[in-house]
């Protein structure tokens, strides 16, 4: 296996579908945030004009979507599930190829996965690791010890992976070795990467 091909094809394909999301509330007002070139990631989900990101990335109804070829286009929030931390943006001018989705429930622990996002402002960065589980957050891990906030269900399943995420990965995809998206990067708990399972997107976003 030539080393320069390690995940290269799958990563290139997925990176072509990943955008940066700049929150309007931050992008126009406070220069410090805007100069970082966005503080979240997202990816083209359907038809090239619908984008998935994290709800905590978009605080208002509008956001700027920065395409892989560097165009900044307007996006409008058309769906939001704050409890699951998922938002759907409509950006008709973006014209970005949609991702293909995979099934995290079919993955075995130890399978290679990778994330694409903009950790600490580094554009379209790839980080590689392995899949662990799709389950509720393990007992004794950070958030699981706290009382669930605002009626949040502590037993909802998360894609859990040993892959390095940082601020700027939020809303970006985590994919299997073929580049099929298995989850939406949401947060890090006790060092563990948590993502919203891809199969949940359909249901969450049709309800919103």
């Amino acid at each position, binding site marked *: 296996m030539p080393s320069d091909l*390690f995940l*290269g094809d799958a990563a290139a394909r997925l990176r072509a579908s990943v955008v940066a999301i700049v929150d309007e509330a931050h992008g126009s007002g406070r220069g410090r945030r805007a100069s970082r070139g966005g503080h979240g990631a997202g990816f083209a989900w359907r038809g090239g004009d619908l984008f998935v990101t994290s709800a905590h990335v978009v605080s208002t109804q509008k956001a700027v979507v920065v395409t892989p070829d560097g165009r900044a286009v307007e996006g409008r929030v058309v769906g939001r599930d704050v409890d699951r931390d998922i938002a759907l943006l409509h950006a008709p001018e973006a014209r970005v190829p949609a991702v293909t989705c995979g099934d995290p429930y079919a993955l075995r622990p*130890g399978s290679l996965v990778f994330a694409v996002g903009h950790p600490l402002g580094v554009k379209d960065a790839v980080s590689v690791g*392995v899949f662990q*589980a799709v389950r509720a957050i393990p*007992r*004794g891990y950070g958030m699981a010890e706290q009382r669930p906030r605002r009626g949040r269900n502590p037993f909802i399943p998360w894609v859990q992976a*040993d892959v390095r995420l940082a601020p700027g990965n939020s809303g970006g995809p985590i994919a299997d070795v073929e580049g099929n998206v298995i989850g939406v990067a949401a947060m890090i708990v006790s*060092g*563990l990467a948590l993502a919203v399972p891809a199969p949940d997107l359909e249901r969450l976003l049709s309800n919103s």
Partner: protein
Amino acid sequence: MTDSRSSIAALSDQLADAVAAAGASVVAVHARPRLPSTGVHWKDGVVVTTEGTVKQEEDITVSLPDGKRIPATFAGRDRGTDLAVLRIPPGSLRVAELGDPAVLRPGNLVLALGRLDEGGARAAFGAVSATGGKWRAWKGGEIDRWLQSDLTIYPGFGGGPLVDSTGQIHGINSGALSRPLATTIPVGTVNRVVAQLLERGYVPRGWIGAAMQPVRTDEGGGLLLVSIEKDTPAAKAGLLLGDVIVTIDGKSLESFDQLLDVLSGDSVGKKVGLDVVRAGKQRKIEVVIGERPRGRGRR
């Protein structure tokens, strides 16, 4: 091979196979509140985990790969190497397939396994960072090989195995021995400590019953005796306060590590010769190494 997609998919499958194979001998150990730790079914009926994660010696249970939770009995612990041993009924699960850590080289892909709940074995992925010879842990234990990786030892992964890409187990991961690095206690050390713990419940440590301080002398250095307890090997040998031990067993003695090397392993009962400087004159003294009393100092 030219098809990168299939070869990377094959590697992914191989890693998942390795997790499945090694995971069949990995249990969750419930010996502390809230968060379990991980244990390895090292030999039939014997589970090894890290000493630091065993907070209770009664009412311990382990979760098996099939989700069943069974009682385990505490067999012994060794703080020096951060290992603890439990007994479970024989035949409860597959016995670990052990590898030879000496074959691992920096850059080799490895996995750390953990079992936290009923959801199957979990894995962290990385590479061997550094290997080396024998070393002494800060807790005092002698470890046969230095084996460090860039793996993340997640909460609850302590006591779990270091697994290579074929599924063989090369040792027990300790988050506590060399924090924040992932350090593995290699198979040979685990075998040695497990045998001692099963036989006695603890690892006997050599001891002479004196407190010492490193000092400089005209000839180099030595250890100055600053207290000697009654009825100890040091007292019986006629050592006196103020003596400076400059050699032990024919080797110069300038640091505690050199003394601990002589006192480790099967040293209990062994007679060793000392060169001692007393009142400016060098003399020879023989001391019979005793066994460090348990329940005093470090266990």
